[in-house]
């Protein structure tokens, strides 16, 4: 049996090797190219990849599109910010503690909202997102209201606070890589299989003795934690949070990430995040232009490549190749 065939029966091993190679290449990049502004962008990519991966898990496995990931990004960001600035908790610890809040809320929302069909789910999660935005804006005492919060301590390891881009880079990319590995493992496990089946036919799955609701809630919580961790890491990198953090526009940008990278490709989500970050940096300009480009691109991509730009292009290339050899 070839190496690849053997690896197919060991998805965890295969995933670990893939992610391992990927991480090593990412870690070598600053070594090869030296310090520079690009490092700043790449840290953003590492951070934004997390909510994107979370949504990819939800939409790819469970076939659901929720618009709550922005809200959980905000909850993670604000939660960790409040704990670390007002209670003096160590940023790593506050990041983790904030996830407890994320889990509690996501479990509650998920349990009730996931029975709904696609657009009702979207509306319900959108409403939830609006409530979260409102609470953040109005609860001035806790969140700083429209001004947001400043002076959030940077992430640190072993007592040293990260103080340069390179340091953040070497802390954040391993975290993202590990979470990517978790997502890949989940996807290729019995849980991923059950979720894909649930997506296709929930009544049939029930007859197999599988409690669909529990699985859907589970993946929703996982997906929300991904967003929450991303939010916390974001807060400890840029040092401030505002109501614009994890706003609905942010949530739509993440949907855009998946529209580009593919709705059910985890690696595609990384590609999508890289593209969006580059676009944000060089092409999108002011908020208004950004909205126009974002909106038009979403429409165009969904019309032409309903499964996402990247998978659509890959299919196109594959088919052409077959056509030539056939």
């Amino acid at each position, binding site marked *: 049996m070839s190496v690849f065939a053997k690896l197919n029966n060991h998805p*965890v091993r295969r995933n670990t090797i893939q992610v391992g190679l990927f991480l090593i290449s990412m870690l070598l990049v600053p070594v090869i190219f030296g310090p520079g502004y690009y490092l700043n962008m790449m840290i953003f990519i590492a951070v934004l990849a997390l909510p994107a991966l979370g949504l990819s898990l939800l939409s790819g496995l469970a076939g659901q599109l929720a618009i709550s990931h922005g809200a959980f990004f905000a909850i993670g960001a604000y939660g960790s910010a409040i704990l670390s600035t007002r209670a003096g908790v160590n940023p790593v610890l506050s990041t983790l503690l904030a996830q407890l809040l994320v889990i509690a809320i996501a479990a509650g929302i998920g349990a009730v909202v996931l029975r709904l069909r696609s657009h009702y789910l979207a509306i319900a999660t959108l409403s939830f997102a609006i409530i979260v935005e409102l609470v953040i804006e109005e609860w001035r005492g806790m969140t700083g209201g429209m001004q947001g919060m400043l002076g959030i301590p940077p992430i640190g390891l072993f007592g040293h606070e990260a103080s340069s881009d390179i340091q953040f880079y070497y802390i954040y990319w391993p975290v993202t890589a590990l979470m990517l590995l978790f997502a890949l493992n989940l996807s290729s*496990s019995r849980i991923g299989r059950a979720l894909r089946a649930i997506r296709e*036919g929930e009544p049939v799955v029930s007859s197999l003795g*599988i409690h669909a609701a529990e699985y859907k809630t589970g993946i929703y919580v996982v997906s929300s934690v991904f967003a929450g961790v991303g939010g916390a890491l974001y807060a400890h990198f840029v040092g401030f949070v505002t109501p614009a953090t994890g706003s609905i526009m942010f949530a739509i940008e993440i949907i855009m990430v998946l529209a580009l990278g593919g709705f059910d490709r985890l690696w595609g989500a990384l590609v999508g995040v890289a593209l969006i970050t580059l676009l944000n940096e060089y092409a999108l300009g002011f908020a208004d232009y950004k909205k126009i480009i974002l909106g038009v691109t979403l429409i165009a991509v969904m019309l032409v490549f309903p499964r996402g730009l990247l998978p659509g292009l890959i299919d196109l290339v594959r088919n052409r190749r077959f056509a030539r050899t056939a």
Partner: protein
Amino acid sequence: MMLAVSSLEKRFGGLVALKDVHFSVTPGQVKAVIGPNGAGKTTLFNLIAGTLKPTAGDIRLDGETIAGLPAPRIGMAGVARTFQQPQVFASLTILENAMLGGHRYHRGGFLACGLGLKHTKREEDKLRERAEQWLAFAGIADIAHRNASELPLGQQRYVEIARAMATGSKLILMDEPAAGLDDTETRELADMVRAISDTGTTVLLIDHHMDFVMSLADEVLVLNFGQRLAEGTPHEIQKSQLVIDAYLGIDDDA
């Protein structure tokens, strides 16, 4: 009794789909439910499997009441089902479909699977072995890695069968398994049902192919207009004037 149904009734608002239905199935038996279209056969299956709740009456599986329980609970109690339109999961391979049958016996929650802990691998291997066994039983082991959506109807049925057997259920409900099959395929299916029965699993099936039904069934239940019309051996049923009248002659095609 493997399955005991008594005074079963299902109303949809003013429409009475089933009324005062009672029958039983002994362990290891192959029992057929026949009746004209609209007689309530699929509704009966839906009630047993938990897709619908009865408005009155009782259903007992191996002595335990299952009437009104949610479908996953009934599935876990030991009832499996195949459907008139084969409900295979098109986005999964055949092997994966079969692995879903045994899913609930194996451990591994979200954290364990995400972290890729060792025991999840062992469980997966066990699951795969079990699934492969049942694929072999159903005669489709050679196409295990194809996508379920690529198969013709007849073979999709066998995927359903493998998956149902992998659940280790005591009772299998088969809803019109011979629908859409030609004579040869129907004969092969009959062999398959016999093989299933030989494993000790109890089979309750609905079908319109009379040759198929009569050659397989130990007993036959006839429903008409949602009520029990007759119950007996195939021979008795074929001779029963009541049944003949209800059908206006029993045909051997669907």
